C-alpha cells in the first residue's frame, strides 16, 4: 500500500506565498496583453489594426484605439508592428470593474454601467458558481488549476459551489452560445441576492474569436450585468486570483483606461 499521507507530509508545502510578500506567481514568461507605446506609433500605419483577428485595435484620427476587452493575446500585432509601438509584455492582470477601463485611450461612447450591490458583507469569503457558456476549455483548465496545490485558492476563502443557490458570484466563461444562453440565465435567476457576475476570458467579455457568429453571442454583453471583467485568452490562474481579490477589495485594480499600473 502506498503511504500517500506520509508522502504528502514529506513533500512539504507546494503552495506559493503569492499574492502575499514576494511569493512566486508562477507566471514566468507568460505573455500578456500587448503594451502600446503611442510615441513609437507611425502616422498612417495600420498594420496592427488590420491583422488583429478580433478587431480590438482600431485606427483613429490621432493614433490607435485599443479595446483590451477584445484582445485574444495572439501577439500578431506585436509581430507586424514595424516600430515597436505594440510590444509583447507580461501584462496579464487585467481584471477591472468597469468595461471602460479596458479601453485605451477612452471609449467612443459611454458604456452602460451596472450598479453593483453593496459588498461589505463579502470581503473575506466568496462562493463562486462557474458557468461554461461555450469556452474553448482554456478558461476551465486555468480555473481548475486554481485548486491545485500551487495556487490553492481555498486558502483565500474562495470556493466553487455545486449549485448557484449558494453562490455569491457567477463566473462565466465563453461567448455565450445560443444553446447555453437560457441555462446561463437560469443559473443567474437561481442565485440569491445579492449576486454578482464576473466575465472571465475575452470570449465572455466581448465574444472573442467566434463572437457574433450564428452560434454565439458577444459574451455577456446584453445578457447579464457584469461586475468584474477579466479579458485574456485564457487569463492565467494568477490573473483570475488577482481579479477575484480585486473584486473582494483585497487587492487594488491595476488597470485603468487601458493602462496597467498607469
Amino acid at each position, binding site marked *: 500500500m502506498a503511504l*500517500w499521507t506520509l508522502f504528502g507530509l514529506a513533500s512539504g508545502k507546494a503552495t506559493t506565498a503569492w499574492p502575499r510578500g514576494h511569493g512566486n506567481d508562477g507566471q*514566468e514568461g507568460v505573455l500578456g496583453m500587448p503594451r502600446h507605446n503611442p510615441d513609437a506609433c507611425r502616422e498612417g500605419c495600420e498594420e496592427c489594426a488590420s491583422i488583429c483577428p478580433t478587431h480590438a485595435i482600431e485606427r483613429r484620427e490621432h493614433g490607435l484605439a485599443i479595446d483590451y476587452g477584445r484582445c485574444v493575446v495572439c501577439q500578431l500585432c506585436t509581430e507586424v508592428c514595424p516600430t515597436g509601438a505594440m510590444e509583447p509584455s507580461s501584462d496579464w492582470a487585467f481584471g477591472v470593474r468597469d468595461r471602460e477601463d479596458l479601453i485605451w485611450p477612452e471609449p467612443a461612447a459611454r458604456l452602460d454601467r451596472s450598479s453593483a450591490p453593496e459588498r461589505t458583507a463579502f470581503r473575506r469569503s466568496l462562493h463562486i458558481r462557474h458557468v461554461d457558456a461555450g469556452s474553448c476549455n482554456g478558461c476551465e483548465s486555468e480555473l481548475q*488549476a486554481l485548486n491545485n496545490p*500551487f495556487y490553492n485558492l481555498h486558502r483565500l476563502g474562495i470556493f466553487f459551489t455545486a449549485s448557484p443557490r449558494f453562490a455569491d458570484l457567477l463566473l462565466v466563461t465563453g461567448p455565450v*452560445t445560443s444553446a447555453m444562453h437560457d441555462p446561463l440565465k437560469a443559473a443567474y435567476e437561481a442565485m440569491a441576492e445579492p449576486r454578482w457576475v464576473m466575465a472571465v476570458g475575452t470570449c465572455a467579455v466581448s465574444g472573442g474569436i467566434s463572437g457574433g457568429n450564428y452560434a454565439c453571442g458577444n459574451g455577456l454583453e446584453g445578457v447579464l450585468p457584469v461586475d468584474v471583467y477579466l479579458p485574456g485568452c485564457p487569463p492565467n490562474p494568477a490573473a483570475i486570483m488577482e481579479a477575484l481579490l480585486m473584486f473582494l477589495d483585497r487587492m487594488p485594480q491595476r488597470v485603468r483606461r487601458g493602462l496597467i499600473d498607469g
Partner: protein
Amino acid sequence: MIGTRIRHLSPGDLRASAEALTGMGGRMQFAYAWTPLGGAPEVRYVSAIPDQNEFDMWIVSGHRELPSLAPILPLIGWYEREMMDLQGLTFTGHPEPYPLIQCVDDAPPVNGNGLNGATSTNGRPHLPDVDAADVQHLPFGPIRADVLESAEFTFLYVGEHIIHYHPRLFFKHRGMETCFEGEDVRHGVIIAERVSAVGSVAHSLAYCEAVECAAACKVPARAKALRVLLAELERLYNHLHYLGHLCHTTTLKVGEAQGKLLEERAKQLNARLTGSRFLRGLLTPGGFRRDLDPGKWLGDALEKLREDYVAYADRLENSESHLDRLITTGLLPERVAFDQGATGPIERASGLDRDLRRDHPYAAYAGLPLSVPILKDGDAYARERVRMAEIEASFVLCQRILLLLEPGPVRVECSPAPSTAGLGWAEGPRGSTFYAVHIGADGRLARVKIKSPSFSNWRAFPLTVHDSNMMDYAINEASFGLTMAGCDR
C-alpha cells in the same frame, strides 16, 4: 492532394464502397461537406486503409441527398447528422434522423430543416422509447457541479444501476468552422488554437499541415523538430492532468494533488518556453512565428519532472484503493472501439494498434524512435496505463529532440494557391485530429473542417456506461479524458 488517394463516387456506389472498406479492415476517419463558391455541395469521406500511408478520400459531388452509411459504419452517424444540421443535406436511411448540433427545442434551427419529421415518443427523440415505469430519468446538466464544461447527461437508472445513458453535447457549439471562412491562412492558426485549448498544438499543427499540404511547401527541419517538442509537451501536461483528475474520481486526495501539481509544473515550463501555458502563438503555416531557444534549463527541468513523475506513477501503481476502482470499470471492447471510431489512448487501451504519428508520420516523427503502447483490456485501468506509457515516451521524445535540435531557419513562405485543398493531421493527447482546408478563389480560407478526437471518443463512451453503475460513472468518464470544446466546436 498530398497524402490522399482520391476517388470520385456516385451516391449509388457509397454503400458498396463502405462494405468494401469494412471488408479490408479499413476505417472511416471523418466525413464533411462543403460547397465551392457557386458550385454544388460536395461530400468528402476520408478513410484509413491498413498498411497504406495515404488516406483514401471519396468525393461525392453534386448531390444533396445521399444514402446514409451509418448502418454499415456506425461511426459516421454523427458526421452525417452534422451535415444534415449545418449544410442542409439529407441522408436517407439514417438510424438517428434527428438533429445533433441543434437542440430539439431550439427555434429556429440553423438551417431551417427542423426535426426532419422524426416524431418523438418521449419528448426527446435522442432517448430510446422506454417501456418501464420504474426507470427514472435523471437529467444532469448542462451546468454541472464543479468547474466543468457544459453538457447534459441523461441517465435512465434505477437507484444505482444505469440502464441507459445519453450525453447531449453541442451546448458549446460555437460555429468554429465558419470562423475560418474568408480569413487569411495566417489568421486561421489563431482560430485553430482556440478550438480546444488543451489541444491547441494538435489543432494548430493539423491546421498548419493542411495548409502546407495545399501550398505544397516544405517546412524546415528545425521547425519540424520543434513541432514535435511542442506536441509532446502538450501530451505531457494533458496526461498529467488526466492522472490527477482520475485520482480525484477515485478519491485519492494526495494523488490528485500531486498529479495536478505535476501538471502545473509542466504548464509553467510551457509558459517559460513559449510565453503561453497552452503553447499557443508559435505555429504558423510554413513553420514557426518565431524561433524557440529551449536552452539547457528545459532538458534539466524535464528530467526533474520525469523523476517526480516516475515516483508518482509507481505510487499510483501500488495504490490498491485506486486500482480497485479502475480495473474492469468502463469496459470498451475492441470491436466497439473500432466500430465507433474510438481514437488515441482509448483505442490503444482496447487493443487497436493505431497512431497517426507512426502510421501516417508528420512533422519530424518519421525519424524518431516512437513506442506505441497497446493494451487489450479496454478498462479504465488500461486507459490509465496507456497514458502512463505515453508520458514516458513523451519524455524520451522531448529529450531526443533537445539533443538533436540543430540551428536553422524555422519558417518558409507558405501561401497556398487559390482553389486548392489540403488535409492535415496530428495525433493529439486525446487522439487523431484532422483538418481539411479548402482555399477559395481569393486565396483565403473557404472551408475548414475540424475533426477533433473527442468527437470520436464521445461516441464510444456511452456504450461503456449502459448497464454500469452510478458509483463508477465519474471514474469511467475521467478515464476517457474527454473534452466538450473540441467535440462541440
